[in-house]
């Protein structure tokens, strides 16, 4: 079986982004005299890449049906808090708490999706409202205080590595592969993209757009939950501020990665590569001691630049 989408395209967004990422890495390595190639630095880069990657995928899942999910950030924070609460205050074993954290994310996503379908209110607005609600719930768990000292085993696992690769990053990669397989090979995943690409055509072909919408939101919530448990395992301490800075990055990754806002076209690889590029900007800031004001300027330029380059390459190709 030959799958056309597996062919490597030298014109696609993924290729451009790969070149960009490699280039950025080489420049960083050269100008810091190899500092970024140092084990600790690499570990830090990839450990903190896991969450931006997964959160980008969470946004991508709903962009696939032409929706947006403004609640991804707060859901991540809420799931992290719930997981920690279950371990610290309820005393559940870590694995059970993690599962509950994931289930919480999925449940919130399901509710988002159901509201969108039942009320026909635009998902942007629905998730704006649920974002506000979850933001409140996030503080309801433990107020402003920080959870710490839960399951040392989990934290050891979260901060550890396998063959030099941080476990959380490996986990994120597995999640990304699962998401890619879902959208490429699983029937409901394809139907979801069909709904996003042309809802009327999908409906006329017997695809339930409502089901696609609910499913996309559910997946988005679940992935936000995944990001939440990654935070719990990686950082060893969580509080209600977790997730505050995730909303804009959640959009930046898929959009730079070539995902269409209109729906129907997604790119898992592009989203992950874009997350990496944005992450490299952070790293550059620390390496060169850049004033954070400049970092924002740079991120702005990188976002626009990456998209422009892809666009221009795309245009040149046709």
């Amino acid at each position, binding site marked *: 079986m030959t*799958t*056309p989408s597996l062919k490597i395209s030298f014109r696609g967004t993924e290729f451009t982004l790969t070149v960009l990422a490699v280039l950025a890495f080489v420049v960083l390595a050269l100008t810091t005299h190899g500092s970024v190639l140092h084990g600790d630095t690499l570990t830090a880069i990839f450990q903190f890449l896991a969450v931006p990657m997964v959160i980008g995928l969470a946004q991508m899942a709903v962009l696939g049906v032409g929706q947006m999910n403004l609640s991804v950030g707060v859901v991540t924070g809420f799931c992290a808090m719930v997981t920690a609460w279950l371990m610290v205050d309820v005393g559940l074993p870590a694995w059970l708490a993690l599962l509950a954290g994931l289930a919480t994310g999925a449940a919130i996503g399901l509710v988002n999706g159901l509201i969108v379908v039942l009320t026909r209110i635009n998902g942007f607005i629905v998730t704006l409202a649920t974002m506000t609600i979850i933001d409140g719930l996030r503080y309801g768990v433990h107020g402003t205080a920080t959870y710490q000292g839960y399951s040392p085993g989990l934290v050891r696992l979260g901060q550890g590595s396998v063959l030099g690769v941080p476990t959380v990053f490996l986990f994120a990669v597995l999640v990304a592969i699962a998401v890619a397989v879902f959208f490429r090979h699983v*029937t409901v995943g394809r139907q979801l993209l*069909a709904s996003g*690409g042309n809802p009327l055509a999908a*409906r*006329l*072909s*017997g695809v339930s757009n409502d089901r696609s919408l609910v499913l996309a939101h559910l997946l988005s919530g679940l992935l936000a939950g995944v990001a939440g448990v990654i935070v719990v395992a990686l950082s060893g301490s969580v509080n209600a501020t977790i997730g505050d800075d995730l909303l804009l990055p959640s959009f930046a990754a898929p959009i730079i990665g070539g995902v269409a806002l209109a729906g129907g076209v997604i790119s898992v690889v592009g989203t992950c590569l874009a997350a990496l590029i944005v992450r490299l900007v952070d790293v550059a800031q620390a390496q060169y001691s850049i004033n954070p004001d400049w970092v924002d300027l740079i991120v702005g330029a990188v976002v626009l630049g990456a998209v422009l380059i892809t666009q221009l390459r795309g245009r040149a190709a046709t």
Partner: protein
Amino acid sequence: MTVTAEKLVKKFPGVRALDEATLRLAPGSVHALLGENGAGKSTLIKIMTGVLRPDGGRIVLADGGEAHFGGPHDAQRAGIGVVHQERNLIPAFSVAENIALPAVPQRFGFVDRAAARALAKRCLAQLKVQLDVDRPVSTLSVAQTQLVEIAKALAVDSQVLLLDEPTASLTSDEADRLFTVMRELRDQGHAIVLVSHKLDEVFAIADTVTVLRDGRSVAEAQPLADLDHDEIVNLMVGRAHAVLELARTPVDRTATPALELDGIGTADGHEDVSLAVRPGEIVGLYGLVGAGRSELARAVLGLDKITAGTVRIRGEQARIRDVGEALRRYRIGYVTENRKEEGVFLTQPISRNIAVTVWRRLARAGLVRERDENSLVATYRERLGMRLSGPAQLAGELSGGNQQKVSLAKWLAADCDILVIDEPTVGIDVRTKAAFHELIVGLAADGLAILLISSDLPEMVTLADRVLVMRDHRLVGEVDNDHDYDRTSQEVGRLLHQAR
């Protein structure tokens, strides 16, 4: 399988699209569903395929049971397949996946791509179409998407197949292949419904006919053999339809051409295209799909790049950068061929759709009054016989033909000297078509210079003073039209197919 749609009623704001319409289908026959634009044909088909729910009436299946379609899926399961009037494909998906979409072959919840591709290949082969099934649909031409759409309907094993204007954008070759498949299916006992405005093809293939007029069935499942062309038209129109003789005013061939192309080459590949259209003249531009006629028009209007030659307007050399400049400075209008994508604003009221080209003229101190727009609508509603519930109705709610009228009306309103009209009557019913023809001739009589692009040869012969034939982006000859169909069509055919 017999299916009967009995006394279906469907109400839309302002209209009863169906008013107790009945359609009886018998296995082993091709059934033509005819009617003017807006008669309710597509609505009937949408109800029979679960897309719309009727406000009255019922659908009875073979076993005498009443069907209640909650959605397209239910109709599909009941064995009813369909090709809708509008294209409905997923742009980013491959041909194979689009064809397989209504019944995705799967294993354990995973798409079985091999099976999907095999299915797609089989359906395309049935239509004798060569197409890479892995190509994304977004890269296909209009005709190709139409073919994929038909293949998709064949993919579901249905006993009843409803085809809503399937040949509108097909070449006659492609249409013939479709008819062959339709005959095969008929012979296997399928019931097939064909909606078409091309009566020739209806007579060529259909066995029985139902005619809709204003949502009512004025002929129900009559054998087509009992009727002739004129009788059908009279049924559709509701009165004796006189074929009008269009009186043409002779053109002054010595006058300065209103539009003149001299040795034009374009980025799209046109070479050395020269032509002239004089005031009062209708110059036809004929060719097969893909010959480059629309592209030439687009280049003249500044939408594509001109790389060689000169354009002269009323004798003056002109550099047109965009449609706005064409309209305002040179008084050229362009009636596009794709009304849905380029011609009308589906989500906007009809008034704005028509007034968009003349706001500059209507505006007082930059402000436009609704009253002025509405009177424009009244004018063209009358003049073009548009069926609409009011100026505030959204263009998207109109039937295809009426949308086409809106698209033309905006250029008529703009009061141009030169009109480029691209495929004006695709999907337009006979009466409207005649009215369009009358209109175009009238415009020429008023002194407009008209460049008419059409793939409808009879239309060319009816309207054009001269027919230019384009092939592979070059003009290959010119036929002076004496309105004798046989002679002109032979001439044109010769030019079209002669060896180079």
